[in-house]
């Protein structure tokens, strides 16, 4: 079972919550703060943090597709 992260880029408002929550998986572009996914299919040990990041994104721009 592989889980995959999807970012709806136009919705991203660069709150940085994903970077603070799962720094191994997310970063931000320097020029406009938009999220960058470093690990599109996150390692099992990062999945809990990714789920938290998805839950707290204030723009609801992230999804974790599991199955």
């Amino acid at each position: 079972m592989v889980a995959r992260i999807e970012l709806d880029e136009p919705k991203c408002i660069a709150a940085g919550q994903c970077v603070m929550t799962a720094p191994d998986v997310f970063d931000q572009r320097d020029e406009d703060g938009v999220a960058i996914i470093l690990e599109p299919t996150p390692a099992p040990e990062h999945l809990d943090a990714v789920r938290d990041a998805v839950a707290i994104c204030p723009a609801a721009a992230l999804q974790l597709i599991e199955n």
Partner: protein
Amino acid sequence: MTDTVPAYPFSRPTALDPPAEWEQLRSECPVSKVRMVTGDEALLITRYADVRELLSDPRFTHSLTEADAAQISTSEDGIFNRNEATMTAGPNHQRWRRMMNKSFTVKRVTAMRPRITEIANQLIDDLIAGGQPGDLQSALGFPLPVFVICELLGVDPNYRDKFSHWSDAMLNLDKFSQAETSKAAMEFQEFMVQHVLDKRAEPGDDLLSELAAIVDSQDGRMTEAELVYTAQGLLVAGHETTANMIGKMVSMLLADRPNRWARLVDDRSLINPAVEEALRLDASSSIDLPRYISEDIEIAGCPIKAGTTVMASLSSGNRDERVYEDAAQMRLDRVPNPHLAFGAGPHSCLGQALARTELQVTLGVLLDRLPTLDLAIPADELRRRTGLIVGGIEEVPVRW
């Protein structure tokens, strides 16, 4: 029957506790009429899902300049009355937002941590030197975010008393007269226009110098008027919100010292979730976020007519039993905590990573320097600041 419409904002039993109306409205009347201090009527929404959905709807903004919008302040120079239409909505807002985001990324604010730590330590030195009991709010809460935003913008912090007054005037609910807010708005405008000119003559390594260069490139990214508006907005935002939150956060943690403060002293890994939980439970963040409804919609099954002003209650949504288990309880280890303290959607707070960092650093330094900290008066005797759009505590007397 206008006299049955409740007056808004609701009164609070204490500085830290929520008004009883929120819970009642969430369960019985999630879209409710309220009367603003100006006498105008608006609708108040109180459930998490409704607040989140409305704030995330890109069609509606906080600009209340339409003739039929509710007036929420007794004076006309406030942040919701300004004619800033070029920047508030749609593609222009996104363009402005993405340009500003650059200065507030996690990387940029993390780089500011050492300096924020240094400022916190200096202010705590002064608090200690002043002897016990001391007022944590005036010694640390107010000055820390002001020093940080002044450094970021490249503005002299020695003007901070003036900034503080101008900020209060722009956030007026019913504390100031129209003459007072007009005078403050004019002075603030003159100051900022002159300051931008000075930055042009002598650029520094700061955000205003950077934005002035962008305006000068005349490539359509930003106009002079937008620059002055942006600078004012950032200075006000940097002043009032985090400043008040420091006092409220520390008060909440000390109000149940054994279960909150003492736990944090023993376990610093709780600092970040504790900050989020304090943000969630803040009962006097602001009078809530207005949205001008420009086309007919439905909220919680109620039809809302175009031309209505809706107040979205972040603080009530944050206590919604439908979303949070033990919603009224402060749980320092609540993760994830998708609270609405910084709003939601396209207008969610620009400076939220900076605010979080300031709160986390301040709490960490306080735990290190003053682990024996305690309130010098009972928590229910703390006094709320009133009359402004933002809420806080007048004084936070502490011992250590």
